[in-house]
Structures are given as C-alpha cells and as structure tokens.
C-alpha cells in the first residue's frame, strides 16, 4: 500500500474566506458567476487523485524569468527579485513535487499577449512565464523582475497593483488553485476591485508577500517570500472501515 492510499478526502473549502463568484465592483464577474448553489459532495477518488509532474520535464531556465526569454547575452529589464516560499496544506504539511506556474507583466506593466493594448512597451527580453516543482520540503523559488502596475478597463481609472499570477496543482485535483501574489507596501492593493472581491482584510494579507532582506542576494536581487496553503486532507481514504478490520 502506498502512502497516498492513506490520504483521504479534503477539508471542506471555506467559501466565505474565498471571493464569492458574484462581485459587482469587478464587472466581468457579473455575467460569469453561477447563480445556483454549488452541489456539495465529499471528495471522491476523482478529486483525491491528481496529475503528477516530474522534475525532469523542466528546462534549466524555467524558473528564471530574467533569462528564459532573453536573447543571448541579454537580460529582462527591471528590478531584479527572487520570489520564494513553501507550498503546504491546511495541516501545515509540506506539499512536495507539485507544479507551480507563474505569469506576469513586464517592469512597465505590459503583458506579452495579443489582446493586450496598454501603451507601455514590450521588453524584447521578457516573456512573462515561469514554472518550478516544489522540493521534498515543499519549497519553490524563482527569479524575475518586479512587474509594473497597469491600468485595466473596469472603472475608467482602475489600476492593478503589481502582481504575479500563480497556478498550483497540489497532490490531488481537489486542491487545484489559481491566485495572485502582491507586494508589501503597494497602496494600489487596497483600491483594486479584484483584490476587493476577497471578503476579509485578513484573507487579503495572505496574498501580500513581504520583502525578506535575509534572502536577498547582496548587490544583485531582493527577495520576497510567498507561502501558499492548499486544502488539507483528512487522515484516511477508508473511513467507513475500522482500523485493523
């Protein structure tokens, strides 16, 4: 019997902690939010299991956004930063070997995307995507440039705070999560309708990465720490059966 067979259903998601589907100040949510109640079901094997990604699928520069799109001898322009953290579950248990994908705008707040029309210029040496797989202790780390804030069509003068998008898998498909990381001290965080979709200040604070001077590389890059918590699991898959029977 493998370890996984002892891992059970996920804890119920705290839907009052996450942003609800319908948040009118974020206008696009108005017609994209289900109106009927979600059907609640205890996790089945379809959620308890999840896709597995191997370290050997990664390229050498996958977690280095300063270099992974740069021409030979060139680098992305911007404030050099390291973003690191630990992926764990609600029990505080590290989530090893899980895929973390990130994407972001360049230092001027411009995305490399055909539907993006902001006048800030593209950086020819910055693509905007990175990925890594957590180590045995759930740790991940990548290098990038600090993204710029950018305006977006919601209100006539809405600006996104500087942010990095994160996609995380976890060990079961029921843990699948997409979120955004913000930077300590950014005044735009508290004016953003997308951030404002999150009900409590306490929950928003979970998305704000502090500057960590102890992990900077002197004369090179500053560091920001962003820990990620995925749903926790109950103890055993075979809850209906008494232990030892």
């Amino acid at each position, binding site marked *: 019997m493998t370890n996984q067979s002892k891992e059970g259903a996920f804890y119920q998601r705290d839907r009052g902690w996450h942003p609800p589907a319908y948040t009118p100040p974020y206008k696009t949510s108005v*017609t994209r939010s289900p109106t009927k109640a979600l059907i609640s079901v205890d996790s089945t094997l379809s959620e308890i299991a999840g896709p597995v990604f191997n370290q050997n699928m990664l390229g050498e520069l996958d977690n280095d956004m300063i270099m992974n799109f740069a021409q030979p001898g060139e680098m992305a322009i911007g404030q050099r930063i390291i973003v690191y953290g630990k992926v764990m579950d609600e029990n505080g248990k590290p989530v090893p070997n899980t895929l973390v994908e*990130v994407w972001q705008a360049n230092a001027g707040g411009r995305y490399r995307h055909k539907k993006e029309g902001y006048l800030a210029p593209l950086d020819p040496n910055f693509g*905007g995507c990175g990925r890594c797989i957590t180590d045995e202790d759930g740790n991940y780390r990548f290098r990038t440039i600090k993204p710029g804030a950018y305006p977006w069509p919601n209100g006539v003068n809405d600006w996104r705070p500087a942010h990095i998008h994160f996609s995380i898998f976890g060990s079961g498909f029921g843990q699948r999560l997409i979120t955004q990381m913000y930077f300590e001290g950014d005044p735009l965080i508290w004016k953003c309708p997308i951030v404002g979709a999150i009900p409590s200040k306490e929950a928003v604070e979970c998305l704000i990465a502090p500057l960590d001077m102890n992990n900077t590389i002197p004369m090179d890059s500053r560091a920001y720490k962003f820990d*990620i918590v995925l749903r926790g699991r109950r103890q055993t898959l075979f809850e209906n059966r008494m232990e030892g029977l």
Partner: protein
Amino acid sequence: MQELKHLKETPSQTAGPYVHIGCVPNFCDIEGVYPNDLGDSMVNDKTKGERITVTGTVYDGTGTPLKDAMVEIWQADAEGLYPGKDPRDQADPNFTGWGRKAGDYDTGEWVFETIKPGAVPFKDGRMMAPHITFWVVARGINIGLQTRMFFPDEAGANAQDPLLTRIEHQNRVSTLIAEKTGDGAYRFDIRLQGEGETIFFDV
C-alpha cells in the same frame, strides 16, 4: 481553550485574461521557453481504450462565448484507474489523464482528444458512472469552477451514479450529460449562468 493549528487556504484570485502566458505560452506565441504546452496531448499511439473527442464552449449569462477561458480535464484511464498515484493499481502508462486547453481566440471553442474513462468507485464501494472532471478558469471567475461531464450512452450507470442521484433538482442533471455528435465525438458546453446553467460542485 487550546488553539487549533490549522492554516487557512490561500484565497483564490481570478486567472485573468492572460492566463495563457503562464499556462499555455506556446498557444499565445511565447515560443522557445517551454518545448510544448502542458496538457496539450493526453494520449499516444499505445494508449488503451476507445478514442473520443470532447468539444465545447463556455458561455456567460448573456449567451456570449468566453474567448479567454482555460479548461482543464482530469479523468481515469480505460480501466477506471487514475494516472500518477492511484492507490489501487498502476494506471495505463500511455495516458496522462490530464488535459488543458484554452478556448479559440475567435470562437471560444476547445477540443480534447482523449479516451473514454472507465468507472471509478465511490467511497462506499458503489461505482460512479464514467465521467470526466472539468475545471474552468477565466477573467471574471473569482474561483475555479468544477463540474463533471457524463456520457449520454451510459444511461444505466448515470441513473445509479452516487452524485447524480443526490442532486435535488433532477431537471438540471441534463446539464452534465454530454451530447453525442458522431462516432466517438461528444459536445459538452458549459453555461456559467442563466438558462441551462451548468451544475457546479463544491467537492
């Protein structure tokens, strides 16, 4: 009183309109960073099982297709085993079980080429009808939406399915049954809101 030491889950935020950059960069012309887009291909020549395609579009509450949605699917192999780490047995090594597609920029449509999954047991040992788990994210969706697609040619299994049978509004169950459009071809449209709103799960 003692404190419970549980942590809170990291709050979700929308995937936004540029989810492609991080998840399917080659699809959005960011080439040379990753050799291919993850989840683009689920099967190879040796994959066991009946080949099928699942095509669909995600619609908003006005009936407009979402052109910036990303859809992921997760399913068992032809024997009903999950690739990766199913506790019961080793699944087909030639099947990934997981696929990811962005909707077409002009129409919003996506197509998965996969195999028909086998049945997977529910926790009490009853069998669940063959199904594919869907997870949908997009601009305007604050937290990923999860649903399941079932097969129209499995009416018997669907009628006994532990999830489908517990749904109070049985007149909505049809939103989870794909339409057969040809030999091995299925259509599964997802409606976020309004008439025919797809059933979503908190699971």
